[in-house]
């Protein structure tokens, strides 16, 4: 064994990897090390001469000036989330019929953060993003877009439907005072969902998520803002007015919950399947997802707005400042506030519409189609507090804390430390 020659691994390794006797990347007369060194030196020189990455904050043009010379172009490009409009794009067809404006609809937003990453460099450069209208939630990315001056200030004289039909909750929001830059597209509640097959008592509060009886069967959300809100509400703090001290106290609570083994995992949007099959008994959840799951799969998942309160998030319509068709975009914005249109959208999305009047319209539609399957589905939806929250629910719903970029970092790392242990 001892005088066995060492296997010549080098050449065999290369054969195994490349099936060629010689690596094509090695030039004759040049060893690989030398070439690596040369490459490395070039990289270092090139890299370090580049000076970081620009942020390019800009001053948003005053509303009047911006809109003064803008005209209708007859078409617009709309970036939305998947499943936020039916596959026929019914409402957009109605829009085209009513106005003659063609809409190029793209389900390009899969995740707020990566979408922001995609458009930010172009906006920083003053380039077209490829979109004239887009939908983003009221999270950190929206705050950054506003702070960077990347959104068009809306001309509210062009939004008569919005003025007339938008619910009070959806006007003058905390994250965009006076709706200068955004109007809501759809909203949802982050509350608690549980599976009554496994949970034998009624769940009413956030504190139930800390109950050791459910050890290893509780799901929490991985998103820093969502999870922070529940920690804050448990401590009796309104997220919108919270301070650094409140965040630390909330983080402490969440850490206790995690380290006691109560939390099974931190979920993004994929909590439905584990909740249905019993891997999770109880989880933080979004209202519309639970409504859809019950309506489509016949499951009996429960969704509650906890006693301590919950949060109302909103996905918003907005126009990037490099838009090629802002007039068309704002027309569509307003069109979506027509109660009939809003009702049609809500029927498909099953989230909360910012147009409360849609509830009546939906009930009328249900009467008109009484007895049919669609009529029943409409009736059920019109009466559901998941889609049309009650006054009592609204009183328990809070907004997210609104943070500037510096504070966002501190906030996010505090809560990511919990979910990414």
């Amino acid at each position, binding site marked *: 064994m001892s005088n066995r020659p060492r296997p010549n691994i080098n050449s065999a390794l290369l054969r195994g990897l490349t099936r060629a006797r010689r690596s094509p990347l090695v030039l004759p007369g040049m060893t690989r090390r030398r070439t690596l060194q040369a490459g490395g030196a070039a990289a270092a020189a090139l890299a370090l001469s580049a000076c970081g990455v620009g942020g390019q904050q800009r001053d948003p043009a005053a509303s009047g000036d911006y809109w003064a010379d803008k005209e209708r172009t007859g078409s617009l490009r709309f970036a939305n989330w998947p499943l936020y409009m039916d596959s026929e794009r019914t409402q957009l067809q109605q829009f085209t019929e009513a106005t003659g404006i063609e809409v190029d609809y793209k389900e390009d937003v899969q995740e707020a953060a990566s979408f922001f990453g995609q458009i930010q460099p172009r906006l920083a450069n003053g380039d077209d993003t490829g979109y004239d209208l887009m939908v983003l939630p009221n999270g950190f990315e929206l705050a950054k877009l506003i702070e960077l001056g990347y959104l068009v200030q809306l001309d509210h004289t062009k939004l008569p439907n919005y003025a007339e039909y938008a619910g009070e909750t959806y006007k003058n929001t905390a994250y965009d005072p006076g709706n200068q830059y955004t109007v809501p597209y759809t909203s949802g509640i982050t509350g608690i969902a549980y599976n009554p097959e496994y949970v034998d008592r009624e769940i009413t509060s956030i504190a139930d998520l800390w109950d050791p009886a459910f050890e290893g069967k509780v799901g929490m959300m991985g998103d820093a803002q969502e999870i922070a809100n529940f920690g804050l509400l448990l401590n009796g703090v309104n997220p919108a007015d919270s301070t650094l001290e409140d965040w630390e106290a909330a983080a402490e609570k969440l850490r206790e919950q995690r380290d006691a083994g109560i939390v*099974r995992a931190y979920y993004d949007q994929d909590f439905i399947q584990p909740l249905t099959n019993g891997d999770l008994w109880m989880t933080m959840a979004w209202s519309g997802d639970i409504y859809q799951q019950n309506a489509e799969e016949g499951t009996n998942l429960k969704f509650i707005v906890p006693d301590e309160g919950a949060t109302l998030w909103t996905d918003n319509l907005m126009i990037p400042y490099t838009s090629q068709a802002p007039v068309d975009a704002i027309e569509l914005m307003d069109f979506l506030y027509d109660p009939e249109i809003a009702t049609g959208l809500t029927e498909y999305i099953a989230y909360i519409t910012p147009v409360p009047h849609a509830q009546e319209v939906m009930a009328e539609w249900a009467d008109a189609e009484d007895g049919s399957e669609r009529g029943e589905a409409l009736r059920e939806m019109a009466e559901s507090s998941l889609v049309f929250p009650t006054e009592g629910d609204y009183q328990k719903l809070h907004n997210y804390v609104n943070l500037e970029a510096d504070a966002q970092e501190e906030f996010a790392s505090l809560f990511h430390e919990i979910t990414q242990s």
Partner: protein
Amino acid sequence: MRNRKITPYALVLPAWAWLALFFVVPIGGMLSLSLTTGNVITGFQQSFAVGNYVDAVSTYWEQILRSLFYGACATLLCIAIGYPMAYWIAFKGGPYKSTYLLLILLPFFVSFVLRTISWRFLLSDNGVVLGPLKSMGLLSEGFALLNSAPAVILGLAYNFLPFMVLPIYAVLERMDPRMVEAAHDLYAGRFQAFVRVILPVSLPGVFAGVLMTFIPTSSDYVNASVLGGTHNTMIGNIIQTQYLINNNYPIASSITFVLMGLLLIGIFSYARALGTERVMEVHA
């Protein structure tokens, strides 16, 4: 004659251009970014902030070590499963060798993420694996596999197994069968022939397999986010969060370079232990 001298350079030019453009430039950019300070709003300024590295390591050393550990476990599992597989195909596969290889590659026709998610169904508390075992009373009702470290390691091993099988197979398949015959002629039994002849000859394949599984498994983030629970986060998840969610590019880049450094150190020591210290400086 002159043409002959130029030809090899001309042929290698596209590869060099490719590497320069898509490897050297981005990695240079990342290196520069890892030494900056700032945020997306104000921009990132070149300040040669070495502190980023200190921050990255002191905050995330646990996740870094865990990633290397999970990667190592998955790699060992791949060897344990993949070596016999490659051996069997190479020596007993007969005319169906390529069919077997195709079967090994077959899962790759399905998206990586989907395959990983399907493990959730497999490992689910009352799923096809645990459900029957529980109803037979072999496992306690509360036993769970999903969202644990073993689940992540299993997922990693599953996803990267072909990268272990193929290089080992490639080496074994090329082996001259007369070498084994010679061993038998020298009175080596089957076991001796394996240990003294087949195994040493196949080590380069194992080495290549380890490179091709250990590196991607220890930087993977899909398995940990789909199959992991609390305290299973891998460093890939941290990099993803820091880049895409927190937009903290400097920290994300520093972690990337730390991970790269650790992997290189690990691989060089492994190469040395195997007696392949010259592996990174092959002469043409």
